[in-house]
């Protein structure tokens, strides 16, 4: 594994945690943790990745700058997506799914902490 899967362990300890993954900007999963999720995370991340990529394009085209974080609230869950930096040599996306009553603030902080570590592990 080119990035250590244990990087995701810190997310697993946050209340409401369901699943997480780090992918390339094209949606290929590099590492993932799906133990608490019934559906196929590869399909889920690919779908959310497309949404996030569109957010990248739209936010740039309307002059808002680069998309860094996206948060989708559903009836029962919250999906978080974080970008490591669009123009860098390594452009990764971090995904995490939490239950709605989970600690979303801490989850966002943790995702933003994990992604630079994943980039550093490669360079």
């Amino acid at each position, binding site marked *: 594994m080119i990035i250590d899967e244990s990087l995701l362990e810190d997310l697993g300890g946050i209340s409401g945690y369901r699943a997480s993954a780090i992918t390339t900007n094209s949606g290929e999963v590099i590492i993932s943790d799906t133990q608490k999720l019934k559906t196929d995370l590869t399909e889920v991340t690919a779908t959310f990745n497309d949404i996030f990529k569109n957010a990248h394009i739209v936010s740039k*085209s309307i002059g808002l700058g680069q998309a860094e974080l996206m948060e989708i609230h559903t009836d029962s869950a919250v999906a978080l997506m974080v970008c490591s930096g*669009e123009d860098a*040599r390594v*452009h990764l996306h971090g995904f995490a799914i939490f239950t709605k009553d989970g600690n979303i603030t801490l989850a966002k902080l943790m995702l933003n902490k994990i992604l630079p570590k994943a980039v550093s592990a490669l360079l």
Partner: protein
Amino acid sequence: MVSFKKQLTAKEKSDAILSSIKILNTESNNRNIIYIIEKLVKALLTASYARLWILNKEKSVLYSRTIDELEDIEIPIYQGLLGKTARSTEPFYVNDIKSSKSEYIKSSDNFEENNIKDMILIPIIKDKDVICVIQAMTSTYDIQQFTDNDLQTFKMLIPYIQSIDLYSTQKIEEEIKADNKDERKNNSEETIDNSILSKVFDFFK
């Protein structure tokens, strides 16, 4: 399976260029020369695919000599990113090409239908005219993407490619091709694999 190719250091880049130049200086076969340049570009830019397209202004096409052993593949210059490069003077790159709003056209820019992710395109200009276009691409499974550094890296190589007379070496080869097409076909692959390319591959290991 995703993979990450680390960028070469400045010394590794200049060593790679110098090594390839040494080999190219002893090579006269046009197809082999292009093949070695493509391999060098792939190594320098940590790309998975690279192709050198020669511009034929009379026919308004770009053609590649290394896709098929016997036939040259032609792409019209009025479409796609390859065409845009042939009509311009500036190198550029497009990351995540499939979701970008670029002029990318699959049938011409990626007619081999490789699993590509990012593309960098560099026009080689001689006497104010584009003589060829170099195209390099990462794979969907590559984590790295192109940056401005890659454009700078490539600029190291431009003066040398400008100095290669792709047209005259081509003429020489075509004369040979006309005289002995079948014999050239049999020998060409062997020549590439056994002599020149093995030296290049050894260097980049």
